[in-house]
């Protein structure tokens, strides 16, 4: 990181876009102004984990595609309309399944860790309100 707000170079977006374009059920992919759309932080994190693991570990993208199709089909088999539909939730289900079958995670571990995180009081690591500035730099002149 050269400076604080450096952007990745080269911009990985082109590569990411080609991965998205290769996904099945393209009409279901949420988009805004043509771009993949996210509404929640966890959606971005789950998406980024999948893509980063693909790049780092080199798993076949088609393996993920298959899991995504299966996750969508499973949801469709249990619902008759689109109430409660979330593309990113299906994505997460597919990614979890891929992670399990690839031996990266065990579902019992994941359940336990999730409960552990939920059991923490909000902001357990940084509770204390700081009501004065931590630094005041007077004018230079």
């Amino acid at each position, binding site marked *: *990181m050269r400076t*604080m*707000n450096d*952007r*990745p170079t080269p911009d*990985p*977006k082109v590569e*990411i876009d080609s991965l998205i374009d290769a996904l099945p059920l393209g009409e279901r992919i949420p988009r*805004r102004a043509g*771009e*993949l759309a*996210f*509404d*929640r*932080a*966890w959606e*971005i*994190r*789950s*998406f*980024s*984990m999948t*893509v*980063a693991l693909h*790049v*780092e*570990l080199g798993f076949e993208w088609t393996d993920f595609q298959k899991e995504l199709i299966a996750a969508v089909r499973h949801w469709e088999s249990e619902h008759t309309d689109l109430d409660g539909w979330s593309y990113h*939730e299906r994505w*997460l289900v597919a*990614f*979890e399944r891929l*992670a399990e079958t690839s031996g*990266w*995670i065990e579902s019992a*571990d*994941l*359940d336990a*860790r*999730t*409960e*552990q*995180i*939920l*059991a923490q009081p*909000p*902001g*357990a*690591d*940084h*509770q204390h*309100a*700081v009501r004065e*500035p*931590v*630094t*005041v730099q*007077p*004018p*230079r*002149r």
Partner: protein
Amino acid sequence: MSLTHDDTHPATTDERIAARVKAMEAILVEKGLIGTDAIDYMSSVYENQVGPQLGAQVTARAWTDPDFKIRLLADATGACREMGVGGLQGEEMLVKENTEDVHNIVVCTLCSCYPWPVLGLPPNWYKYPAYRARAVRDPRGVMAEFGFEPPDTVEIRVWDSSAELRYWVLPRRPAGTDDFTEEQLAALVTRDSLIGVTAALSPAAV
């Protein structure tokens, strides 16, 4: 597996999913399969998407409605609620106003406490040790890296957000915007200006 983590504050489906994603990342990182940096790198492409639109709207209202601004500075949580903005991790918020004489900048020195309901997803750099340490020690140096240099006559105040109390900054209204609508003004408010590492955009920049 219990459905709630305590009796007084049941986790919503969304909180539960967010915790699961966090758990998955923790396990993958601990196993050495992936680094947090690699995930940050990918997510930086999209971090602006879950963006600070709400904070921008609140700021534009404060610039155009003096009574609202007074309420915002006195009780940011309440004023934001008036505009339907609030929720998890925005329980107590304080807004610090930039003036001709004072510029404010926000950091979370220990982790990455951040007023999500207003500012959206925090940028990756917000949680980097480099920002957390340097914003306190050398705020002008950090701002310079974002291309922003407040005049020497300005006092810099650095505020430490925590889980109990989260800060954000009310930037100065840019010059040449007297006849702007709230919507036009909101377009000048960036996430970085609400954290205080930059000023709001000038009309020429959009």
